[in-house]
């Protein structure tokens, strides 16, 4: 979609207009959009875009695609509120506004030479997917590659095919758990933190990337430290109300950080104390 460009230069609030090339459902409430990337678009794992639905509003959504493939811009979204539910109704060919990428990425390079451990809760796997794909594409640069993934129910598991493909790989350890199992579930049951003590990684040489609900990240951080991981090697991705992604609307503050600018990926030892305080 052509955008009228006879306007003031580079208004950072101005989205590029692009179209939906493909879409599919992941779970009951979660779906993936595949967009034509705006010209020259590049991102790093962990960064996010602001997606705009005409007349409804804008939301922060992580990029979930493969950073090594630039042909498509992939977002996995859970329909929870007004904008995300409208996103779910969009069909192939519809226009959508994109601004980004924003934010600090996962420190995938810092992990080089050691173990890379990924801990995901629920939709938290979406922002971690690019990091995993990056690591797999550069597999020889890491020692062990581990994914610990938990959801509430078996039906909430994202990227089923991909996750089972990963499970089948010899160069990656994948442990999956659900909070509440049903009859069909034959895997482990319990919160994701319970996987940490038995997961195959060397705490002293690991970089851990964590994304999920705040409470899950808090307990995961504690558990990792208990297992001996250096707090400075643990990274979490925060969610806050976000309306501009430019650190000027003020909503995404988390202590001294703007999640959009200083995050969303933050180092655990910068936030562990804040995690212990209510309503920060």
């Amino acid at each position, binding site marked *: 979609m052509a955008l009228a460009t006879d306007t003031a230069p580079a208004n950072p609030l101005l989205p590029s207009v692009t179209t939906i090339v493909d879409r599919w459902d992941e779970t009951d409430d979660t779906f993936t959009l595949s967009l034509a990337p705006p010209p020259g678009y590049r991102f790093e794992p962990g960064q996010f875009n602001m997606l705009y639905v005409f007349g409804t509003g804008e939301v922060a959504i992580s990029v979930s695609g493969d950073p090594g493939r630039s042909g498509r811009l992939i977002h996995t979204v859970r329909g929870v509120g*007004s904008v995300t539910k409208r996103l779910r109704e969009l069909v192939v060919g519809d226009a959508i506004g994109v601004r980004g990428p924003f934010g600090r990425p996962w420190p995938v390079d810092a992990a080089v030479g050691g173990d890379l451990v990924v801990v995901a809760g629920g939709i938290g796997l979406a922002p971690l997917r690019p990091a995993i794909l990056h690591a797999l594409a550069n597999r020889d640069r890491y020692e062990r590659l581990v994914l610990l993934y938990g959801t509430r129910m078996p039906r909430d598991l994202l990227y089923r095919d991909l996750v089972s493909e990963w499970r089948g790989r010899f160069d990656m350890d994948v442990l999956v758990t659900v909070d509440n199992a049903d009859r069909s579930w034959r895997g482990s049951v319990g919160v994701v933190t319970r996987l940490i003590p038995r997961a195959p990684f060397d705490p002293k040489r690991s970089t851990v990337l964590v994304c999920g609900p705040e409470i899950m990240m808090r307990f995961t951080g504690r558990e990792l430290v208990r297992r001996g991981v250096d707090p400075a090697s643990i990274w979490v991705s925060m969610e806050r109300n976000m309306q501009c992604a430019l650190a000027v609307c003020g909503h995404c503050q988390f202590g001294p950080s703007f999640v959009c600018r200083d995050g969303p990926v933050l180092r655990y030892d910068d936030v562990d104390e804040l995690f212990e305080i209510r309503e920060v």
Partner: protein
Amino acid sequence: MAGRPRLAVLKFTSCDGCQLSLLDCEDELLAIAGALEIANFAEASREVAPGPYDLALVEGSITTAHDAERIRQVRRESSVLVTIGACATAGGIQALRNWADVEEFTRYVYATPEHISTLDRSTPVHDHVTVDFELRGCPISKRQLLEVVNAFLNRRRPVIPTFAVCVECKRAGVPCVMVAEGTPCLGPVTQAGCGALCPSYRRGCFGCFGPMESSNAASLSNRWQELGAGSRELVDAFRSYNAYAEPFREAADAH
């Protein structure tokens, strides 16, 4: 024009002012009538089509057994039920009866009270049925009414903030009447929506949009007392158009 959402505008115990707000949208009225099928709006058309309705705007509080039944029927017939105005959202000024002897009220007003049948309480619609959205105000603001209709048509969340009148007061650049003139104002505990009308006319807010999201009526009451208000004034202030809304009810009962 099939396919347009069907609108019903319905009245219970009230003054008609909130539905009149729709007719007061002089610039938008014909556009609204184009975007929605006005299926049932007695105030505007003698053509009354039966439900179901896609959007029902309900004005007025519930004060009779018959209306308590009728609102259930309305709920069954309406996909989205929006209550409009202090009567529908809080019981209205007529909820002052909730602290009084209704029989005595009836004797006072009517020569033959035995002809009057009414409940002894005036209650908001949400006490009777599930309400999808509440639009506050005595009367509602037509700008906000348009926003609700607009959001419904565009299927988005209406931008109807629940913060204090003070926010609009400051956005409008109105000098605070409480700080600059010592005039007691309910703005800090009242929900925005009117655009801080009263302070902009140098009058303290009297709470016609009902309690804001986190009303601290106790603290404001202390401040009013420092400014010279007595308990009687505090009770009068909290017991008006939204008297039966909980934070105001408690604030008045505390004095």
